[in-house]
């Protein structure tokens, strides 16, 4: 049973020790770590929601008319839940692994590489939850000001729903961390994978697909289900089938990319 050792390692004190190490560093630098994710949704809301939204006007979503900024707001949270863990495990983990040799220091203790991998993945996902929480606060304020119209009672739950999805996005990012030859090569996963994937997942605009294969690919993409689930919660009638799709695709991605990350990081760091 392949999940058994994964679950055991995830619950292990050593995975927690790696998580706590990263959390301590974050708390030391929380002012600088807090500001960019707080500003980014404000900039996006202004640029896309108010700026672009003025040109787009109202749009159709599930047969109802929605103003663009309200359509985009749930996508903004979904994009944060995806992008934060992906880029955290891509860049920050790479810096810890390659430049700071933090992992080498930890490996000289009772902590094994598999715990470092799970610790990094869990931490990156937690960063996604924190940043999504900041976005939710910004959206709540915008809603109170009448800039957009969403069901704010669900905002508290959204970051937590994104936690499992964040794990799979972090594992996805860590696979690239393990294979890029240098930090300069991070542009490939960032611009050719991360950014396009975020954009074609119904985050900022609906992607209307009639091709059966592309549609299947879209349904295998947890970001798409995350964006649509958040939309159902914030501007729709509550949880829908995307919740099940999200759970299934996230678990699938975590199994595939979690395993790949373990194998690739092991090869990169220990050379075996």
């Amino acid at each position, binding site marked *: 049973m392949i999940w058994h050792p994964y679950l055991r390692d995830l619950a292990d*004190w050593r995975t927690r020790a790696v998580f706590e190490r990263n959390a*301590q560093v974050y708390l030391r630098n929380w002012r600088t770590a807090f500001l960019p994710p707080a500003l980014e949704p404000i900039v996006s809301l202004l640029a896309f929601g108010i700026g672009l939204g003025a040109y787009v006007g109202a749009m159709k979503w599930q047969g109802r008319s929605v103003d663009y900024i309200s359509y985009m707001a749930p996508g903004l949270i979904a994009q944060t839940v995806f992008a934060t863990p992906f880029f955290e495990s891509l860049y920050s983990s790479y810096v810890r692994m390659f430049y*700071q040799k*933090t992992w080498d*220091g930890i490996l000289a*203790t*009772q902590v094994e590489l598999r715990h470092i991998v799970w610790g990094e993945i869990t931490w990156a996902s937690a960063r996604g939850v924190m940043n999504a929480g900041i976005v939710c606060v910004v959206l709540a304020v915008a809603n109170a000001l009448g800039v957009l119209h969403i069901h704010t009672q669900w905002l508290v739950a959204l970051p937590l729903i994104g936690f499992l999805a964040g794990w799979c996005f972090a594992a996805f990012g860590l696979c690239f961390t393990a294979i890029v030859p240098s930090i300069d090569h991070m542009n490939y996963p960032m611009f050719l994978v991360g950014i396009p994937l975020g954009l074609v997942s119904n985050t900022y605009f609906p992607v209307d697909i009639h091709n059966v294969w592309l549609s299947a690919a879209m349904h295998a993409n947890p970001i798409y289900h995350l964006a649509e689930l958040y939309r159902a919660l914030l501007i729709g009638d509550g949880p829908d089938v995307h919740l099940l799709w999200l759970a299934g695709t996230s678990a699938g991605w975590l199994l595939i990319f979690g395993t790949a990350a373990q194998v690739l990081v092991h090869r990169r760091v220990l050379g*075996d």
Partner: protein
Amino acid sequence: MSDILVARGLVKSYGDKRVVDGLDLNLGAGSVLGLLGPNGAGKTTTLRMLYGFAEPDAGEIRYDGKLLSEHRDELKGWIGVCTQHDTLDHDFSVEQNLRVYASYFRPKLPDVNRRVAELLDTFGLREFAKQPPRELSGGFQRRLMIARSIVQQPRVLFMDEPTTGLDPAARVDVWRLVASLRAQGMAIVLTTHYMDEAERLSDAITVLSRGKAVARGTPREILGEVLGEHVAVVEATDADADALQAWVRAHTGNPPARVLDEWQIPLSGSQLAAFSQAFAHCRFTVRQPTLDDLFLRLAIDVQHDTEESR
């Protein structure tokens, strides 16, 4: 003295290259084993296997009779590792480095605060406790590396080239620390390129060449066994070069080592007598062999074999 560490038949290959080839090692509690050898001899790979960083392809490693492969979690708590390269956590202060590192071990230290304070005092790091490690000099960074590697009070400490890159005063500091750790009963395995360091610190030395142990014992025993009792130092002149090389090859089986303007020729007592007769017209001095001579010999052997295999 019972052995705290016993390794038998260690083998490790990377691709087609066998880096460690059937190596045996023993280490007693409270003793220091120096692992020497030229670059590529397999020292670091051996160390990495011993502290669980790399899996041996064959052979076994036991700590106090327990197999590392079967009791890995427990035994890694017995091991302290001070790597050659800086692996300090520069996101934290000096004090936090010790504290966070302690969190990577179980069982938890009964009193982390006391242990951290003790290490800060012992290693002279108290005044830098709140500073980030990058603000420390190389010598103090090395002190912190060593302090951190023993935070959980290990029974065996591995030190990979602990004084490389340090100035002479800082090297002496590290020597003092190593001596005091040994006096406390800690078993230590160290690799070094500095022969004086190996001679001063090690109770026993194992010399590696191409992944195999080519000599073991105290420094004096090894030199006598491998090199002989004397080293003749001859001023090199082109006129004598061919004859001298031919003579040394014929009588010792090895080529002489050329160091700048000198030939350095390890010889036994009888070989020295024969050499004196054969080269009576040459000016030469005689001195005792050192581990530097051994290193040169091993490096020449490796070069010789490499050329022959081409």
